[in-house]
Structures are given as C-alpha cells and as structure tokens.
C-alpha cells in the first residue's frame, strides 16, 4: 500500500492541490487509463484495458473461450516517465506564511506539473502513430460547427465507435467555435449558456469537448484531435520514495485514481523547506484509428 501523509497541514495543502490536478488532467478522460495510488517503480509495466475496442462477436461453436480478445483489449504500458515540480520557502516563511498562500504555491506547481504531463502525453499524437489528419488542415478562424461535423464524418470513415468520442482542441480553435452562432446563439441552454458565460462547451456533435493550451506542435502543426479511448493507453502510479522525507505520501482521487506524490523535505544548510509534487506515468499508442489528428494550415 502506498504511503499516506500524516501531517494535517500537509494533508490540507495536498488535498487542495488535488482539485487543480484533476481539472488540468481532464482531457485524459479521452483515453484509456489505469490510474491508481498503488506503489510502483520506474519502468514497471501496467496493463491498461482498452475501452470500447473489442473484436467482433463470435458465433458459438462449443467453446466460450474461443476468440477471446484479451491481447487486443489490454495494452502493457511502461511507467517510464517521472516528472516533478518543487517549490520552496525559508523555514521562517514556512512558519509565518498563512496556509492559503502555501496552498496557492503548491496549487500553481501542481497545475504546471499537470500541464507538463499532459503535453508530454500529447507528443504521442503524431502522423507516424495515427496517420493523416481527419480533415484537411484549416485555420482557427475556420473552426465552426460545420467543421466539427466534418471531423465527425472523418471519424465515421474509420468506423470509430460513435460512443465515447472526445474532441481535444487548441484554445484558439476552441475560442473560434465559441463564436459560432450554433453555440453562442443556440436555443439549447446547456450549450449556449456555459459557452457564452464560462467559455465552456461540454458536448457538441457527439463529442465530449476539452480545451487545451498545451498541445505540442510536434513539428506537424497539431492543433487538436478527435479521440476514442481505444486510441491511447495511459497509466499512472505512485512512486514510493526511497529516501526518508519529513513527509511523503500519495494523493489520489478515489473516483478516477489520478494520483500525484507529495514530498516535504528540509535543507538544513540553507534553512529551506521544499515541497515536491511528482507524477510517475507512461503512455502507449493503442489503436491507430482510435485518434484522428487535427492540424493547422
């Protein structure tokens, strides 16, 4: 079992950081995942079940185990990525600083860590892994509802299951979609109201929508993707520290399993208190037709 934090102040700071961690990693819901606070070491392998990617059903011929597709529906993912972010303050500052300030400091760090993890995962979205773009390259100003329908058609071309589709879009493209009359002037309040007021679109044209500012260009003008969970497998675990720290433990969301490690350690020579948040993870391409790239002109 993973370490747990014991100091109430650390628990409060860590639990406050859990919300921005989960929010920043929301786009990971577009992929198959196996997240858990279970302890693991770097380069351990985690089996990630692929969601919604079974082979065709078989006609019964006397044996239920024939044509079992476990090799297809589970992807082994190596935990070969380990990112961390450390913040520090002097011991005096640590004593005198109000708790919310420390929470904000760690909250900012965890948000940046989440963005970096997400950006790293997005580096896998390349032409080599997922083929040609779903639609011809287009500019942000051309991102409207009609274009989303065109992307949907592109997904249908490769028989991507219509359920559980997600659309992850660069911020500029997402913003342009917000201005489309179908969104901003929709008589469907759940679509128009969060779009106009919160700049948020929950779902459109059958896609769960995610806006991101951290999509890497990947040298291929990547600006988004239409994704099904079967396209990419992502795993996340808790890296148990070997050294002794003042405080160390896994912080996890019970529902999703999204986990980060929390460490507090002190440099007595510099009289500084450090708080490190870290993430052990890995990812692997699953089905090539599970993700359709969107590229800019």
């Amino acid at each position, binding site marked *: *079992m*993973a370490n*747990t*934090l014991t100091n*109430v102040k650390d628990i*409060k700071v860590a*639990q406050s950081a859990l919300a921005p961690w989960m929010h920043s990693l929301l786009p990971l819901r577009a992929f198959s995942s196996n997240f858990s606070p279970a302890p693991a070491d770097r380069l351990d392998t985690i089996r990630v079940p692929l969601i919604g990617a079974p082979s065709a059903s078989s006609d019964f011929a006397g044996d239920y185990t024939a044509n079992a597709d476990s090799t297809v529906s589970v992807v082994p993912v190596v935990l070969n990525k380990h990112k961390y972010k450390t913040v520090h303050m002097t011991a005096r500052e640590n004593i005198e600083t109000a708790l919310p300030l420390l929470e904000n400091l760690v909250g900012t760090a965890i948000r940046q860590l989440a963005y970096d993890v997400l950006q790293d995962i997005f580096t896998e979205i390349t032409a080599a892994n997922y083929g040609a773009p779903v639609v011809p390259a287009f500019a942000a100003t051309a991102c409207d509802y009609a274009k989303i329908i065109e992307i949907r058609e592109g997904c249908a071309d490769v028989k991507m299951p219509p359920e559980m589709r997600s659309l992850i879009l660069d911020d500029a493209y997402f913003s342009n979609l917000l201005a489309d009359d179908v969104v901003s002037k929709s008589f469907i309040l759940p679509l128009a109201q969060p779009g106009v007021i919160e700049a948020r679109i929950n779902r459109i044209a059958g896609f769960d929508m995610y806006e991101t500012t951290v999509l890497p260009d990947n040298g291929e003008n990547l600006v988004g993707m239409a994704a099904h969970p079967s396209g990419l497998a992502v795993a996340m675990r808790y890296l148990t520290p070997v050294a002794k720290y003042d405080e160390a433990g896994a912080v*996890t969301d019970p529902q999703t399993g999204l986990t980060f490690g929390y460490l507090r350690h002190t440099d007595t020579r510099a009289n500084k208190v450090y708080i490190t948040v870290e993430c052990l993870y890995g990812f692997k391409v699953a089905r090539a037709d599970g993700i359709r790239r969107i590229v800019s002109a």
Partner: protein
Amino acid sequence: MQTLDEQLDAALAGKRDLETQLSDAKGLLDEALKENETLTASNKELKEQAEHAAGLITGLETDLKAAQAETDKLKADAKTAEERAAEYYGAANPKPAPATPKGEPQGKPLAEQLAAITDPVAQTAFWRKLTDDQRAELLATT
C-alpha cells in the same frame, strides 16, 4: 308649725321613700352584679377564644413560613421554558456525541481517525467528508 304627728308622718313617709329607693338601688345593684358576672364570664370565654385563636395564628404563621420556604426553593430549582428548551435542544446541553449515518457512535477524535488511515484513497474520501469546522478543528489540534 307642724305637730309632732305630722312631723312623724312626714319622717315615716321620707323613710318609706328612702327604703323604696334603697330597694330599687339594691335591685339595680343585683342586676349590675349579675351583669358583671355575665360579662366576666363572657370576658373569660373571649379571652380563651383569643388565646386559642392566637395559637392557631401562630401555627398558621409557622405553616406559611414553611410553605414560603418551600416555594422559594421550588422557584430556585425551577427552569424557564427557554432554559428547558436549551437543555433539550440547544447550547446549554453538551453536544450530542457524533454518530455515523448508521447511528453508531464515532468514538475516536478526528485526529486519531485520520492518523489511523493508511490508504490514500480512504484519506481523500475522509478529508472530503469533513466540514470546514471539522477541518479547522483538526488543524487546531495538531
């Protein structure tokens, strides 16, 4: 000038008048004596009644004092409706022992419960269930 007989008759008449007056006076005296006896008896009876009444009054005064003392004691012990309500439902009474949704007593203090958790999933779940007051209490006790 009156003769001796005449003077004697007059004297006898005077004597009779005086005897009559004496007799009347005796009658009056007897009546007065009788009335005096009656009044004395009445006075004695009244005195006895007064003494009896005084005894009763003294007894009643003692009873009254005892009753007043008891009333004061009951008043001192008695609580207002507000106090009784506060005792049953409010701040005057110690807070009821915390209980789980199943009604089982939450015996251990929050800090001990938190310290006993060794699973990160359970720790997050526990933390999320706490109210702001409980979190503040936890931070204050550590």
